[in-house]
């Protein structure tokens, strides 16, 4: 007996079908119950039950994803708990502005994704396709910025693990043997003191780019230049910290150019001693958080810089991989939407794909402050 629809039982409407005319399949082949939408699988009573079940399954999967990233968050927590100074210093290699842009892009892509689901529910096929394309573009922008950031790290030889230039095991040298003079020189040569916009000496200038030629004795000039500063007077009356890579990193005391004046640091500036100064001994200096430089780290901490970069690359890498998968899902959904497979009665794949994308956004919402905004 001929069925009422040209498609076989259980398949989606053929591309030629108008989206509203989701074919009901007759059961001349002996099913014995009334016709139901083609997209309804047999083991469900109603499309609503099927949809609810799909959602349940997706949320269970999302729970497993949360736990997977949770493992990495645990690693982050332990590493940061045990090495706060390393994190406080090494995070400055990250630019928080890129992170903020990334966050905004992902939030926007979540917005367009949620709008896309809404469009599918309202039979707005063109709008759905447009929203899926925008979401894909958001993912592309996010990965593009990641590429920029990663390239910048690698250019500075900031790799995870052993290859990290700041790790004393660089080039496979013996970790336990005392460093030779040449190794020390080599290590210092590659040490870059990243600047945080909070690391301003009195006068509000940035003074610590990598390998600053002016050397380490220029702090007094900052007091002179305070007249030219545009920043409000409350900001950054911080004692400058000598941190040039060309200076003796260990054993160099910190000079406060305002010593004896009204602007002198309310707490004594930290002094570098052989082996570095433990961070939690530093009180926040007036105007902000304590400045940490590479030279102020304990020698063992200086050997553990890769701890930060390892967790950074692992977390953002795994997250980036998820974004790539999400982009693939968007493409797949887009193709299906082109064929008119989604309508107000059946938009489950769009919904579930949206849930996945929102989870990716959620994870980044937590990654951003934990990696980029450490102060």
């Amino acid at each position, binding site marked *: 007996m001929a069925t009422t629809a040209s498609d076989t039982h259980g398949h989606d409407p053929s591309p030629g079908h108008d989206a509203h005319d989701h074919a009901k399949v007759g059961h001349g082949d002996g099913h014995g119950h*009334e016709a*139901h939408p083609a997209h309804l699988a047999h083991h469900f*009573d*109603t*499309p*609503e*039950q099927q*949809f*609810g079940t799909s*959602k*349940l399954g997706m*949320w269970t999967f*999302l*729970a497993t994803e*949360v*736990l997977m990233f*949770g493992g990495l968050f*645990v690693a982050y*927590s*332990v590493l940061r*708990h*045990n090495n706060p100074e390393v994190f*406080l210093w090494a995070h400055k290699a990250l630019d928080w502005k890129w992170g903020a842009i990334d*966050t*905004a892009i992902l*939030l926007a892509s*979540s*917005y367009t994704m*949620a709008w896309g*689901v*809404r469009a599918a529910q309202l039979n707005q096929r063109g709008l759905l396709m447009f929203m899926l394309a925008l979401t894909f573009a958001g993912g592309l922008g996010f990965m593009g910025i990641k590429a920029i950031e990663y390239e910048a790290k690698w250019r500075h030889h900031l790799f995870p693990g052993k290859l990290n230039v700041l790790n004393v095991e660089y080039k496979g040298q013996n970790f336990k043997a005392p460093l030779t003079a040449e190794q020390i020189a080599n290590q210092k040569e590659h040490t870059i003191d990243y600047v945080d916009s*909070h690391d301003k000496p009195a006068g509000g200038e940035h003074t610590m780019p990598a390998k600053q030629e002016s050397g380490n*004795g*220029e702090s*007094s000039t900052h007091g002179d230049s305070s007249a030219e500063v545009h920043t409000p007077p*409350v900001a950054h009356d911080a004692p400058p910290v000598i941190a040039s890579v060309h200076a003796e990193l260990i054993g*160099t*005391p*910190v*000079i406060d150019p305002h010593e004896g004046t009204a602007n002198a640091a309310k707490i004594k500036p930290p*002094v570098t*001693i*052989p*082996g*570095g100064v433990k961070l939690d001994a530093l009180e*926040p200096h007036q105007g*902000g*958080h304590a400045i940490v430089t590479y030279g102020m780290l*304990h020698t*063992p901490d200086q050997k553990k810089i890769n701890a930060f970069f390892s967790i950074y690359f692992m977390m953002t890498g795994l997250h980036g991989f998820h974004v790539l998968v999400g982009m693939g899902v968007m493409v797949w959904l887009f193709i299906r939407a082109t064929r008119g497979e989604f309508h107000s009665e059946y938009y489950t794949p769009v*919904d579930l794909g949206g*849930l996945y994308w*929102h989870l990716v*956004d959620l994870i980044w*919402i*937590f990654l*951003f*402050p934990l990696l980029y*905004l450490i*102060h």
Partner: protein
Amino acid sequence: MAHQVSNSEAHEKQHHHAVPLWLLTVVFIALLLLTGATVWVTRLDGNQVNVPSFNILMALLIAFVKAVLVCLIFMHLRWDSPFNTVIIICSLLFVSLFIAFTIIDSSMYKSTLTPPSGFTPSEQIAGDGAAPAH
């Protein structure tokens, strides 16, 4: 349909509810503002309470609010079957347990770690600024 059960009414509601566009937009703008707040809070100048632990707490608190917004509105949990919410809350609870217990455990063993070389607390006293002036 012959197999209609009361459950399907809840599913029916969940099935057909489209989030109002104005709500999506408002939530999106709120999320952007909260992102700005996160950055601002962790970079406060002149904040005498600017200790690292306070910063991360504030940032995580704001992140939590953002997560709730995304979950409830973007991910439709507000109108979904409550069991979906139970699932996600449970997973977050377990992650919290995971982190908390590991930190506790790690803290207990921190004192047994090799102390950094060359560090003596008594040498923390700030210098007299005796380094040569410039």
